[in-house]
């Protein structure tokens, strides 16, 4: 049995949203930064069990430093949200609480995974300490470049959405 779930990936620009999706869907990575505009949608099927899979419809949204500007239509029918920040650029996570509040308002009751990306660029222990000191909780620290925790992120979300669907 296969079910389809729409997942929106958003966050500030340049945090690596497209790279995370590309790593997950195509298992590839490029250092060249190409700005995403509007929305780009891709799909990948995640096997949950031998007879059960989830088709993740991934909506890669244009980065913005103000989530109030995210078009309402992009969020319609969303089952899950991945909020991405860049661990090497504090401006992308220093207002994370406000951003999450905006999301909860725009898409009530939709599960959100908070992801710190580009962990390969920093010393993980230092970042964990900084995030801790600033009361920033996260679900995954990923690296689209090395692939670290990328599959874990999407697979865990897929399992969670599959469970929700039951």
């Amino acid at each position: 049995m296969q079910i389809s779930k729409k997942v929106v990936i958003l966050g500030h620009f340049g945090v690596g949203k497209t790279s995370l999706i590309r790593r997950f869907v195509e298992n590839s990575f490029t250092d060249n930064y190409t700005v995403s505009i509007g929305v780009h949608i891709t799909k990948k099927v995640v096997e949950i069990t031998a007879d059960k899979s989830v088709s993740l419809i991934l909506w890669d949204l244009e980065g913005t430093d103000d989530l109030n500007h995210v078009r309402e239509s992009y969020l319609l029918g969303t089952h899950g949200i991945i909020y991405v920040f860049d661990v090497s650029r504090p401006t992308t996570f220093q207002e994370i609480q406000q951003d999450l509040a905006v999301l909860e308002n725009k898409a009530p009751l939709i599960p959100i995974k908070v992801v710190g990306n580009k962990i390969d660029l920093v010393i993980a222990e230092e970042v964990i300490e900084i995030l801790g000191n600033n009361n920033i909780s996260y679900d995954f620290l990923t690296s689209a470049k090395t692939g670290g925790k990328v599959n874990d992120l999407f697979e865990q979300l897929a399992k969670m959405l599959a469970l929700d669907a039951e």
Partner: protein
Amino acid sequence: MLNKLKENYKNSNLQFILTDADGLILDSGQTLMTCEIGTAIGEVHPFFFSIPSIMASTESTTNFHCVQLGSTIDALTADIEVFKKGENILVVIYDLTDHYLSYQAMAQSRNESIIDSELILLKNHELQERERFKNEFIQNFSHELRNPLTNIIALTNILERTDLTTEQERIIKILKESTSNLKLMLEDILSISMIAKGKLALNPSVFNFGQLVDFLRLTYTTRAKEKGLIFTITVDENIPAYIEGDRLRLLQVLTNLCDNAVKYTETGNIALQIDLNQKWANTISLRFGIKDTGAGIPAESLETIFESFEQLGPTEGVGLGLAIVKGLLTLMGSTINIESIAGEGSHFYFDVKFNFPLHQPSLPVLETNKNRKRKKSKDSPKFKVLLVEDNEQVQTALFKMLIDTGDFFIDVVGDGALVMEEIVNNPYDIILMDVNLPNISGDQLVKVIRSFPLKNIKKIPIIGVTAYSYEDQLKTYLKSGMNAVLAKPFDENELLKTMYRFLN
């Protein structure tokens, strides 16, 4: 034919797709995307997957802007309108690829520039943090060194006055040279730390330029000779005899450069040349150049040699000389220039503007050894000193220094809280006080003493000693009422000279 062309033109950027409520394609144009009738619209592109469920829960038209339907942005990027038509759904795709391509190019350049600025700011912040940490570290470190160094200098002087064998005298001489070098290094560290913190200000006054040149000539001719080198100074004869500037800091720049030249030159000569660039009204511009035939500097090191703690090879010192030169010259509104070829030698030069008095000034008479002699006569009674110092080693060193003169009776207290009791019960001629005391700081204590109602107590001369030697700190201590402040490490002469100044 024309109508067909018109129709083609009108529809080339548009596609209509009609589906049923479940998203099954009932009818479709094929202009932009291939849509087979009878297939689920979600199969055409994942974007359409959620359309039926969205439309089931909404009554109105829904617009989606800037949807990338091709594999790349330049393939097909469109605005999409979805209408509810009775039980069916009408999807209209507007191909706006060209428009969004130009928008993307704009966003690319804007975002890149924002991210670059952020990264530069972060980098700067990181560098500043590193610099701050380094300065704080060296400041604390040099501070910690001051007490033991004061002790070593004091005790070496005391040892020197005992009966010594020739070998012991030789050892004492080496010991004194080493402590003197260490003291100079600490001064360098202090200078660089002050420059880095912006706490160093120039202190210009009129001085005899010829005397400064003579000092350099004497010092470096001797030092160069010791290494088998030739040192020459050439000075433009049109330079006025007296100029106005910060003599001490100019000397510091020149001695650092000359020290380096001597340090890195093994054979040949070192030439200090001072030229007059320009002279107008009461202003002159001088060019100072120090040329050597030493090791030279490899091109790749030219950028970094002016950074703190950078030095070219395993030589003495802490690598602060050129950083100090750079910092001091910046304060003087000048920059250091360098021409160097590795293996052939270096030429450092810089220009500095000075004012000069149009008439020969009358300068204060320099204190000489002759008029620096102690003022107390042999038969006069001894002075009574209260030494306030908590560090036992410094206590010992200062005590020995003073007692050896035969001029003083000394009481020692290690706690600031006991000072008042001591001075009320004993008539002291002078107080020698460490500024950093337990329980109460030296400057606070002085304020208390100065406000004491008894005149003989509130007027006691107080000399502070401190390991914190920033100028503004010293000023604070003086402001608190201390008559003088000595920065550690100081030597015996400096201490006694200062004390005698306030006795008699």
